[in-house]
């Protein structure tokens, strides 16, 4: 496995944002992370990126603790909203991230081309629309051949062309052996391409479907995943 999360808990004050969850990501997997607002998806992704310190538990990337430089260089995280250097151009921002991961600035150009962003490569990040920022965040997560790609609602707000570019890039990343863990509320294109679905609620991992179980679910019809979501998670409003 390429990433391992073991008994992860993150507490915000008195509230457990993530409560003792464990899972692994295997090379080449595209995993959907679903759950209502406040389920703990973003906190899980942030902890896996090394951006925040867990209250308890361990996270390893390719066998290394996530806080080590070796592990950080392998993880790409597109957070929400993407943390961008506002006064850099798109190419500079992605180039900076590439260089920080030990890659080459030239890799930025390749990723931007892959995502169909060449036209805005010279534009300052501060001038970008919401959707464009999401795409630049994705480019920064992919650059320098990261092997664990974490996306926090990155596909939300993308137009159909951009979604297609993004999914193609993610498919290419999984083809080279990267694992993708993507939180989203938009089922559809991503659902059709994913290898696994994890469902979170109130900080707990309540469902982990893959292989035959996921295939069986898919055979139940185009809304099967949405039906499962509604069935497993009560409509309680934000938690």
């Amino acid at each position: 496995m390429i990433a391992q999360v073991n008994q992860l808990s993150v507490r915000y004050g008195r509230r457990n944002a993530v409560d003792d969850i464990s899972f692994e990501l295997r090379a080449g997997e595209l995993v959907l992370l679903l759950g209502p607002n406040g389920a703990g998806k973003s906190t899980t992704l942030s902890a896996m990126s090394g951006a925040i310190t867990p209250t308890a538990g361990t996270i390893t990337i390719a066998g290394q603790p996530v806080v080590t430089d070796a592990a950080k260089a392998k993880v790409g995280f597109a957070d929400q909203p993407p943390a961008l250097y506002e006064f850099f151009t798109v190419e500079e921002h992605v180039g900076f991230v590439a260089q920080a991961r030990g890659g080459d600035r030239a890799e930025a150009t390749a990723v931007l081309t892959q995502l169909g962003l060449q036209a805005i490569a010279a534009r300052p990040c501060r001038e970008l629309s919401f959707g464009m920022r999401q795409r630049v965040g994705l480019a920064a997560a992919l650059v320098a051949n990261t092997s664990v790609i974490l996306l926090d609602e990155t596909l939300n707000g993308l137009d159909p062309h951009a979604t297609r570019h993004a999914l193609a890039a993610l498919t290419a990343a999984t083809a080279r052996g990267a694992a993708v863990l993507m939180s989203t509320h938009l089922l559809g294109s991503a659902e059709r391409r994913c290898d696994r679905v994890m469902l979170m609620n109130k900080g707990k991992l309540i469902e982990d479907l893959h292989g035959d179980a996921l295939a069986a679910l898919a055979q139940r019809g185009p809304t099967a995943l949405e039906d499962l979501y509604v069935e497993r998670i009560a409509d309680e409003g934000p938690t």
Partner: protein
Amino acid sequence: MLSSREFQRWERQAAARTPSHAWLWTVAVAAALAGWVYHGIDHGDPTTRWLVVAVAGFALAFLRAPTHFFWRSDATLLARLPIAGHVLFDSGLRRSLLDASRYALVLIGGAAPLLATDAHATLPYLAIGAALVAMAAGAGPAACVGAGTLVTQDRARQLLAGSAPATAPTAVLGGLPGFVAAIAIVLVIGCAGSLDGGSAELPWPLVAAALATVGVGSALVARQAWAVHMPAMLRDVTTLDRQQLATLQILPAAPLHRLLAPAMSPAAARLLDVRSRLMSRRYPMASVAGALAFVILLVLAIWPRVDLSLFVTTVVSSAVYAVMLARRLRQAPTAVPRLERALGITEDVQRSAHTAWVQTWWWLFVGVPGGIAAARANQPAIAVGILAVATLLAIMAPRRQSQPA
């Protein structure tokens, strides 16, 4: 991985694009100080004027250091990139050195009339000024990294593992730099009498040498001993920010904000409450500096002085500080804009909440006691005029801050 030189090249590139008039403001402040000191040669005590501004400027330069180290606006991005601790430390140190050099320019420019009048008598003042510059450049970063290391190595671990309230560890982040700055200021006040050749608790050469040595030495020690903790520091402070922000949402409004709430929209009142808690946690010096201004103005109201210099310095530096605080209100942690977007908080709501926060700070600490002090001054028209201009500058500051795209 990135070297210090490469990282700083990226930073310089970003800085070159960022609209900033810092150097222009520096020259303007230096010129204003020079004019005021020159005016003091015939109408008051020019060296006291210079020294008061030197101390106020030192506090501002010193207390900007946390924003160069652990309260950087790009902390969430840097925390998850594989960037070595000494690279992050060097970046923060370089930013602090830039601040210190602007501060030095103000001091030198302001001292020009003194040098032209009596260069020999001015040298002790310049020596103390140089020592304060060294403290701002070196001890500021060292105090920040020391505080961050304390949080990272000890108290944050306890907090993250337990159920203690989320306020205690981060108090160290602002408190330790504030404490070090306060010691330096007390030492300068202690030796002020000896700068003119008179008697004082402390001789100025000793204070200048001690401050300069601590300034340079502490930066070297901090880089050697604590810089390695910088990545963990950024991560832990980011985590604590999130914890604090999560807690902010469930706390009831403070009494002062409950009073102001009826005059504002519900969204602006809520945002004001969140911002106030955030500011009091991240910038405790805002309250400390405000309280200091309040006490000085209260003293001036009770015992009006012939010379307006202390009144002018207090009011003008408070206005400059209020402008800085208005900028700081805009530089919230990443999670806050996200939350605000989720709650549908618009630019108008933000402006309204920020204006309310700055106005509250201003009237509470400066406006009201300043008004009484101005009315009782021996040149009330001038004092009231200065207070009015400063008030306008302070309360308009949040409206002039543009929202980042």
